[in-house]
């Protein structure tokens, strides 16, 4: 395969399929006229001629699945997996992907060219991995889709629409994966998680683009149709009896989504789910979230005990949400001087944007005459 030096062709999906077809032809030559191979080739050929737009949803499902696994191959750099998946499976242009990830278009184009060069030269296979390899490979695919979603979700209301559009793209891809791999409950769990989170999109920022915390959000502005869809998805996933981190995260998101008011949130249940998630992932960030849930269920002092352990552990050093969470617990305990110091620690670590404004607001609250 030749790949031009100067930029990305318009249709990398079609290109991947050409690579695949050439490989299939190679296999055919070796395998003689094995019927299955011919059928496989026919499928690819018809896909190429009948559906020139490789982003068409009516495409042969199996092919989209192969594309997802090829684009999310672990031998590609994480950022290249994300870019290639979006370019190949969602129809976003290179310029749009570059804008969504806040990098120059030339950088993104180079990233895509390099990834495609590696697929062709290092012979990254164009196929759904064999069943034995799926436990290793599926999590990588889900991680790419969730990364795309989070990139969009973290974009505030004022940010470029392209960035927020990433959420819809990620949901669309998770839906494809969940439909095509019904035996993988984590795919459906991820879809449910995204839907629960996305249902709050209109309520999570105010007119000025400031973040509104979950407890202060106007719940009538949540997308209740999407919440219902998420609940159905999660129900389907849990029926398989094989829980994983996305299903548990979706269950947590579901607890929030179905509470009629912040005060009615089932915090003990959420704390219990976080304990499961913490065991599944071993992640200190999850443990920090558990601290928040425990503080809601059993009081800020109980939460403070967990953040204290995390500080001793040191794995979250440099992560602004650790001092920010500690500050919140101290504020709720009325220990304002300590809270102010913790907010100062958090502000030293946080970037710009709504998170900084939020922390500054809270710090002002504990330093200006509150008891």
């Amino acid at each position: 395969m030749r790949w031009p030096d100067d930029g990305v062709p318009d249709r990398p999906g079609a290109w991947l399929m050409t690579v695949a077809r050439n490989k299939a032809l190679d296999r055919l030559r070796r395998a003689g006229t094995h019927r299955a191979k011919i059928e496989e080739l026919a499928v690819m050929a018809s896909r190429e001629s009948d559906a020139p737009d490789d982003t068409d949803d009516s495409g042969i499902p199996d092919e989209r699945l192969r594309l997802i696994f090829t684009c999310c191959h672990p031998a590609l750099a994480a950022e290249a997996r994300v870019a290639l998946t979006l370019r190949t499976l969602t129809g976003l242009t290179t310029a749009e992907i570059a804008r969504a990830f806040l990098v120059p278009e030339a950088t993104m184009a180079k990233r895509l060219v390099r990834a495609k060069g590696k697929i062709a030269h290092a012979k990254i296979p164009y196929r759904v991995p064999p069943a034995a390899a799926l436990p290793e490979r599926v999590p990588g695919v889900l991680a790419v889709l969730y990364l795309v979603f989070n990139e969009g979700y973290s974009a505030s209301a004022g940010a470029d629409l392209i960035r927020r559009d990433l959420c819809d793209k990620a949901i669309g891809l998770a839906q494809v994966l969940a439909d095509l791999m019904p035996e993988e409950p984590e795919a459906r769990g991820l879809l449910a998680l995204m839907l629960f989170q996305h249902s709050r999109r209109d309520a999570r920022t105010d007119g000025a683009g400031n973040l509104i915390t979950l407890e202060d959000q106007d719940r009538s502005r949540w997308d209740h149709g999407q919440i219902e869809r998420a609940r159905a998805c999660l129900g389907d996933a849990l029926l398989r009896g094989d829980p994983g981190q996305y299903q548990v995260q979706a269950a947590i998101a579901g607890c929030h989504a179905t509470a009629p008011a912040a005060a009615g949130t089932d915090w003990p249940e959420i704390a219990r789910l976080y304990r499961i998630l913490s065991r599944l992932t071993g992640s200190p960030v999850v443990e920090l979230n558990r601290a928040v849930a425990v503080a809601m269920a059993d009081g800020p002092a109980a939460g403070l005990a967990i953040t204290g352990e995390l500080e001793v552990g040191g794995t979250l050093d440099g992560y602004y949400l650790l001092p920010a969470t500690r500050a919140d617990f101290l504020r709720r305990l009325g220990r304002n001087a300590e809270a102010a110091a913790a907010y100062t620690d958090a502000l030293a670590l946080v970037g710009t944007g709504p998170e900084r404004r939020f922390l500054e607001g809270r710090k002002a609250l504990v330093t200006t005459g509150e008891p």
Partner: protein
Amino acid sequence: MRYALIHSMDPDLAPATPEAFRADRAHAASWAGELDAAGVRLHGSRLHPDYATTVRVRDGRTLITDGPFAETKEQIAGYDVLECGSLDEAVRQAGRHPAPPIGTTEVRAFPAHAPGGRLTGPAEGKTRYLLLVVTDPSVDPAVFEDLPSVDAWVAETDGAGIRVFGSELEPPETARTVRERDASILVTDGPFAETKEQIAGFDLLDCADLDEVLEIAARHPMARGGILEVRPLWDGNER
């Protein structure tokens, strides 16, 4: 004696225009053609750093990452295996290669029992991959207590017709590194990269695709004890 030539390229000195790239390729081809005809060069290939994948097995988990084992500026861009009378002779041949002016060529002897002979190309439908075996001082020495010898892996891959060449190399401190700057050849002792990770040997594996070679690499004992880097041999015709 057989010697490995490991060519690296400094991106700042790399051919910048298509003409310079073609001239570099022609130079390498004539060097290889001459040494092939003289029976000195047994095999060799260009290698593209963009197509590298590293494999590590840590705590029972296979970790696959994009890119070469070391994030050094100079990256391995090719290798050759030469049959020469002495290290000095191998160094002399390295000095005539196009790599020293734009990077380095590390010359390292194979132990006497390393396989000789020329290689024929991979069977149809197979891709030949270079498997670099690299040491990793950050691995807990206790890991080596349970590490099996590589013999079973070698026997299995040889038996399956996958491994077509392979050997450890003499230690890095025995290496000579050849550079050419301002039209003078500089030969220094030691390997080209001053990294804590060092190349311990390499194999050539013929596999159907990257997944197959990664799976085989992950079963090499040094996937646990070090780092394995996989690169397809590259004809240098495309980028």
